[in-house]
């Protein structure tokens, strides 16, 4: 092991030395001199390259303009913030600019190839400037990807939010095609997909849990997030492992120039972030944390079971970035989140998520760069019964190690190539149960879980062929190996996989390959401009998913089990088709789009009735494999400019499953198509922000969607004196439709303008109409009626006001 580490270290060192070009830059008065007259090449041309960043945030700037006024030529920075310009030897004034940032003009005397990094500062705070766009105004029309949405924290900052906390996942739900099962449900459902069918990357590392407080908040601290992109239609080939979508949440780097601080105080949560240089312009640190103190609120409530309940969470981010030289940057990141939830004396959950990452970015030359990541992730959860003789702790979890090598080749601004590979090793933690407290009589038990290795090789070429046509073509080859040591049960040939058909057990040694899967994942996107402000886009993706979140509840719980593919639980494979028409109006002031999509998924996983997952070493007998299909229509209208900004989205989606096994016990709803738990056909969202005055913004959010499916009582009978409700087929009925109106008022203190210290109050009202939306529907005995009645529980049954204060200095 030590030898391996040494080899890697030597490799890295040599790599850095090889890839570090000699920099010959000096400054004469205000003129930057690159090279010397004696070094002029025979072609008398020199390549100027470098990176453009925002020194305040550490973010690289994509789409910044580099323009040589005297020659009338220029270029734009790529996704890595890099630019390259071939110039005749000479002296030039070069202008670097980007929307929302101060322009910088540099006088450059260039003799040889050289590097010039530029930092563009944000313009002085101006209340007139509400929307800061870091992409071209018509990016939605011009981009070849269909169904890709990119938002920044600034864009979602004025959306009314739960308890006044800006939230990535809750904001995504205002976009077409994105929903959740309901308030308090973990994760998001994208275009009718299950929550585990979304690959969620946080700082480039796969995240296995996205929710705090059982879904009321997401785990992303907005002060750490730079931007987030949701790929729900065409997914570039560099992403893989999930059949539905990819959410790529990019994190910021600490400021290399100066120390900055940000914080916020709310009724149930506070946060603080500090960032700054450890070595100026060389090494920066960003450290951030959030923590709740909601228990005072719970204790003050009248409902006894709520008063006895507890909910806490915290999360911590640390990002250390070091510029080795102009071409190489190393970033070490660490993330940890913790949640605790106890419902009175009945049950509780505790769950932890950890990510550790090392990222090496290297610019190999003006057109070629490399990104190497090593990620390690851990998710562990605990289910407990706190009191009594049967009090227990049940633990489960998953950890992984991942190596990702991505190469980025940008031969010209209209041609972008990504290729590379990704290898991930998964190891499930053993399921363990044990006593909790001295009075518990529960015995200790443990079940070993599976291990697997996933490898993907990919290449993606995005090219603009002419002024109208752009194409993105990609191919991913993915493979998965189920590894030993493990026990594999054998079932009677030709019979259903049931516990009673279990015949024998095969024991595999550590490291042996038990089962292998391999498959091709082609990806194609085509954009055709039908005019200067409109385009039609088409895409097809095949995605394979080797890791499944096994759940037997309506909404995901923290103790749902991550399970790798095995002989009995094969990989899910989806074919995704999207077609969209995009059109902007008023010089891109208004964006519109209409998209249709269809996804068919093979080997989708659902649970058997009364499935038991805890301490079960043959999960294959508890799950069912079948077909899934989702289709729909998305309409999106977004106003970007003016005092009033916002968007309207409408989605029609159907999400259906079909499980037709050999026998009734392995069949759901007699083998017919049935709606998934998250099938909500109609979904409308209106989100807007209105600038009332120079310092005051009013935010509004309205959501309506069809009630989710439910299995309902259709008749009843008695057994041994117990009245037993008899249920319908799975998800044959629906709960009431959902709607909610939220508002917020954000006030920036006038006295803070143009000073370093900035602060704002946000007054928000969640569920202004006091709509009693169903958190859950269950059955209980009401009064003297023998048969349980359907009862709707609304967690946020009334309007919920909150005041929060955010500051930065």
């Amino acid at each position, binding site marked *: 092991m030590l030898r391996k580490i040494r080899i890697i270290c030597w490799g890295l060192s040599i790599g850095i030395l090889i890839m570090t070009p000699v920099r010959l830059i000096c400054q004469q008065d205000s003129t930057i001199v690159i090279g010397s007259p004696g070094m002029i090449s025979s072609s008398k041309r020199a390549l100027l390259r470098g990176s453009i960043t925002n020194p305040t945030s550490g973010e690289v700037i994509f789409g910044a303009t580099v323009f040589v006024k005297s020659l009338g030529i220029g270029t734009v920075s790529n996704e890595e913030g890099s630019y390259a310009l071939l110039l005749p030897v000479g002296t030039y004034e070069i202008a670097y600019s980007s929307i929302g940032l101060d322009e910088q003009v540099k006088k450059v005397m260039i003799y040889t190839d050289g590097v010039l990094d530029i930092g563009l500062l944000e313009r002085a705070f101006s209340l007139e400037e509400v929307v800061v766009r870091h992409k071209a105004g018509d990016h939605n029309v011009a981009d070849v990807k269909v169904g890709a949405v990119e938002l920044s924290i600034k864009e979602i900052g004025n959306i009314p939010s739960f308890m006044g906390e800006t939230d990535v996942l809750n904001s995504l739900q205002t976009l077409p095609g994105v929903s959740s099962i309901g308030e308090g449900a973990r994760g998001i459902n994208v275009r009718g997909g299950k929550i585990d069918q979304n690959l969620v990357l946080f700082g480039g590392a796969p995240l296995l849990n996205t929710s705090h407080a059982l879904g009321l908040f997401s785990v992303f601290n907005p002060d750490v997030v730079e931007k987030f992109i949701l790929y729900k239609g065409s997914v570039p080939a560099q992403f893989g492992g999930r059949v539905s979508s990819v959410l790529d949440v990019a994190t910021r780097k600490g400021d290399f120039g100066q120390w900055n601080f940000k914080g916020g105080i709310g009724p149930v949560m506070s946060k603080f972030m500090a960032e700054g240089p450890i070595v100026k312009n060389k090494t920066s640190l960003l450290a951030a944390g959030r923590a709740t103190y909601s228990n005072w609120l719970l204790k003050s409530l009248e409902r006894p079971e709520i008063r006895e309940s507890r909910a806490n969470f915290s999360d911590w981010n640390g990002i250390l970035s070091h510029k080795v030289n102009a071409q190489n940057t190393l970033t070490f990141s660490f993330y940890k989140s913790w949640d605790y939830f106890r419902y009175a004396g009945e049950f509780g959950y505790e769950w932890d998520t950890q990510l550790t990452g090392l990222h090496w970015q290297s610019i190999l030359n003006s057109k070629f760069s490399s990104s190497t990541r090593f990620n390690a992730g851990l998710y562990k959860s605990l289910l407990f019964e706190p009191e009594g003789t049967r009090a227990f702790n049940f633990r489960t979890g998953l950890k992984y190690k991942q190596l990702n090598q991505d190469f980025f080749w940008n031969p010209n601004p209209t041609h972008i190539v990504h290729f590379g590979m990704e290898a991930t090793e998964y190891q499930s933690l053993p399921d363990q149960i044990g006593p909790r407290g001295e009075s518990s009589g529960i015995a200790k038990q443990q079940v070993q879980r599976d291990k697997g290795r996933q490898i993907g090789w990919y290449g993606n070429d995005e090219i603009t062929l002419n002024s109208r046509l752009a194409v993105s073509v990609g191919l991913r080859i993915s493979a998965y190996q189920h590894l030993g040591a493990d026990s594999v049960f054998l079932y009677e040939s030709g019979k259903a996989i049931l516990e009673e058909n279990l015949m024998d057990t095969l024991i595999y040694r550590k490291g042996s390959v038990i089962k292998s899967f391999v498959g091709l994942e082609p990806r194609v996107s085509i954009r055709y401009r039908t005019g200067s402000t409109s385009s039609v886009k088409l895409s097809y993706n095949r995605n394979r998913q080797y890791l499944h979140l096994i759940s037997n509840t309506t909404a995901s719980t923290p103790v749902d089990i991550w399970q790798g593919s095995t002989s009995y639980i094969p990989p899910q494979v989806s074919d995704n088709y999207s077609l969209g028409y995009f059109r902007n109006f008023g010089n891109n002031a208004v964006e519109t789009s209409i998209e249709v999509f269809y996804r068919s998924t093979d080997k989708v996983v659902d649970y058997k009735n009364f499935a038991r997952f805890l301490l079960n070493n043959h999960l294959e007998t508890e799950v069912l494999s079948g077909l899934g299909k989702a289709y729909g229509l998305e309409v999106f209208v977004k106003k970007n400019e003016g005092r009033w900004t916002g968007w309207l989205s409408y989605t029609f989606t159907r999400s259906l499953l079909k499980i037709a096994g050999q026998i009734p016990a392995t069949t759901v709803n007699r083998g017919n198509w049935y709606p998934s738990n998250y099938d909500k056909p109609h979904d409308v969202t209106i989100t807007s922000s209105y600038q009332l005055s120079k310092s005051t913004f009013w935010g509004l959010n309205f959501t309506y969607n069809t009630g989710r499916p439910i299995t309902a*009582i259709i008749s009843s009978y008695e057994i041994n004196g117990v009245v*037993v409700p008899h249920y319908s087929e799975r998800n044959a009925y629906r709960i009431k439709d959902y709607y909610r109106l939220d508002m917020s008022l954000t006030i920036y203190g006038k006295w803070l303008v143009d000073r370093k210290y900035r602060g704002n109050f946000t007054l928000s009202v969640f569920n202004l109409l006091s709509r009693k939306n169903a958190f859950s529907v*269950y059955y209980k005995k009401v009064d003297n009626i023998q048969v349980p009645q359907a009862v709707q529980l609304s967690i946020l049954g009334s309007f919920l006001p909150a005041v929060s204060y955010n500051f930065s200095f």
Partner: protein
Amino acid sequence: MKKFQIIIWMALIHFAFTGCVETIDFSTDWNGGQLVVDGRISAGSGPFFLSLRQTAPIEQKSLPVSGAKIILEEQAGPQYFYAEQEEGEYVLENKPGSIVDLKEGKAYSVKIELTDGRRYASHQEIIPLGWAKMDSVYFDFEELEVLNSIGNVIKYWVVNVYIDAHLLSGAGPRPTLRWDVEEVYKLSETDYPDPFGYIPPSCYVYVYPGSEGFQMLDTKELESTKIQGIKVATQRLDNRFDEKHYFNVYQTTLTEKAYTYWSQLRQTIFEVGTIFDTPPAPVEGNLFNIDNPEEQVLGYFETVNVDTLRRFILPSDIPVRLIPRCKFDIYFYRTYPPVCSDCISEPNSTYLRPDYF
């Protein structure tokens, strides 16, 4: 500004997380009528009952199924016959040459033929051995708080019933257990003063198991062979405790399959609370239609082993002072509820004193 802040904070405290529960109507179309079999046997001579009913629309009682021919078969052994006692209720009858004598460790199944010719059967079940014995039944009392339908906190006292038990040494596989609690309390009519010294009758009122839930345990979960502190019932202290009040605890050893069935039933009835619970589903038992395996047959024919232990509570044991509903009070005029002059009108009551009372 300060006033405004106070209002905001007050509102926040008041409304935050103020969830509410309301009944909703799904307007489900009833398409029931499925056969429901509810029968159990144990070792011995009985009496053993079996009921045949059909599922009913919600809020209606299930419908009895009469006129069925029912046979109990012992594997490689004799057959026994059920006779209809009342509509839909059948009892295993002793006949000359067919005296009921069921044995532990033997496998049994039933065959049912309805008047319309449909034929049903159960899978074979073995009468389990009684590997667990109850040691004691005991109580504690606590004051509970609940929020009523209009949002007020109501406090009341309850009695919790616990049992201790143990697994017998030399036992085979660890048993799966269910506990049902039956209550029997004495209800005496008001003894008004009269010149003749008339003593009004007393009734004995039964609260049958099942209506308030049941507890289950797979003893394989346990570290030791001792089963301690299992809470088997919680009952509100009210006028049912004016006089002697018995708790009869039945500890039933179940077969593995029956345990699974009752676990699923329990889950269906009592554990369908939130979106974090397993969604409910029809519970399948061990019966099937011989001619049409696709037909859904509900219920269970179970073979059990039952251990019984009982203990009573006297009014003097309870920590709260109840005003007896039927006791005559010479100083204060009050109206007595009708059961105080006609105790037999109380549902599930009888004049017949149980022998243990």
